[in-house]
């Protein structure tokens, strides 16, 4: 299953959740992390139950210095 994660196409196992990808990228310290799936916010409480699908675009964001 191909999913675009932060602009890069990745091959993920079917059934992979948003939560799994977030923890792989950001580690366990997920305070200050936000996720958009196909441009819309996925609230934290839905990460574990949101299963990714072929062709979706996931953005995993956090705070950086700037602005």
């Amino acid at each position, binding site marked *: 299953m191909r999913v675009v994660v*932060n602009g890069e196409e990745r091959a993920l196992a079917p059934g992979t959740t948003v939560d799994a990808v977030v923890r792989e990228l950001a580690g366990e310290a997920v305070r200050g992390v936000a996720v958009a799936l196909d441009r*819309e*916010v996925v609230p934290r409480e839905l990460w574990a139950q949101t299963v990714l699908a072929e062709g979706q675009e996931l953005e995993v964001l*956090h*705070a950086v210095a*700037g*602005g």
Partner: protein
Amino acid sequence: MSVRAELATRAPDEPFPLGGRVWRSRLIMGTGGFRSLAEMEAALAASGAEIVTVALRRVDPAARDGSPLEVVDRLGLFLLPNTAGCYTAREAVRTARLAREAFGTSWIKLEVIGDDRTLYPEPVELVQAAETLVGEGFVVLPYTNDDPILARRLQAAGCAAVMPLGSPIGSGAGINNAYNLRVIVEEAEVPVILDAGIGTASDAALAMELGCDAVLVASAVSRAEDPVAMAEAMRKAVEAGYAARRAGRIPRRLHARESTPGAGRPQLA
């Protein structure tokens, strides 16, 4: 009463109301451009600022050099996320929603820019985004042009402040249009925060003397040769400019006005 006793009983500086809260510092700090997180932390501490702004970007697992959030937490500062880098209302609204999710705050410094050369605000998209976000319950602090009409529109949209630029972001060119800024200040019923273009302490003091309620500084501190010393200079400048505004300056005159009485002048010619 002696002068000393009178000074001691004088009312303290007015606190700074913004977004339903009251702040002590009228200096808001950006976080971009510092050479390291340690330097950022020292400069933020020296600035005396209570509010700091951060941006949202993709998580990069390769970069493990610490988070500005840790600095914000250690110093006990109030986090103001921003929508830096957004070009459309849609992007900015989505970024604001993500920031609310990430940081648990409905405060947002709204930036919608028109191009990457001037970094000037895109006024039509800016107003649209402001209206949408106010409708969703955000405390919206919009970076805006130094345009009194646009400032009026943003205020009418329900923004908690207006944040006009003095000159382009990062230019350090100071306040290009003091007249416009004065008109914005004169009309505004929400706080006016000078948001961009400050180069050095005198620019910040001037903004406050012109009647701004607060000043936001980023590059002028973070890219200074000594950011910590400049942060302290900005703190003093904002305080001095505010105090001078409250003290009431003398009017500008074309010609001199002697301060020594003419009467009693001896004939020595």
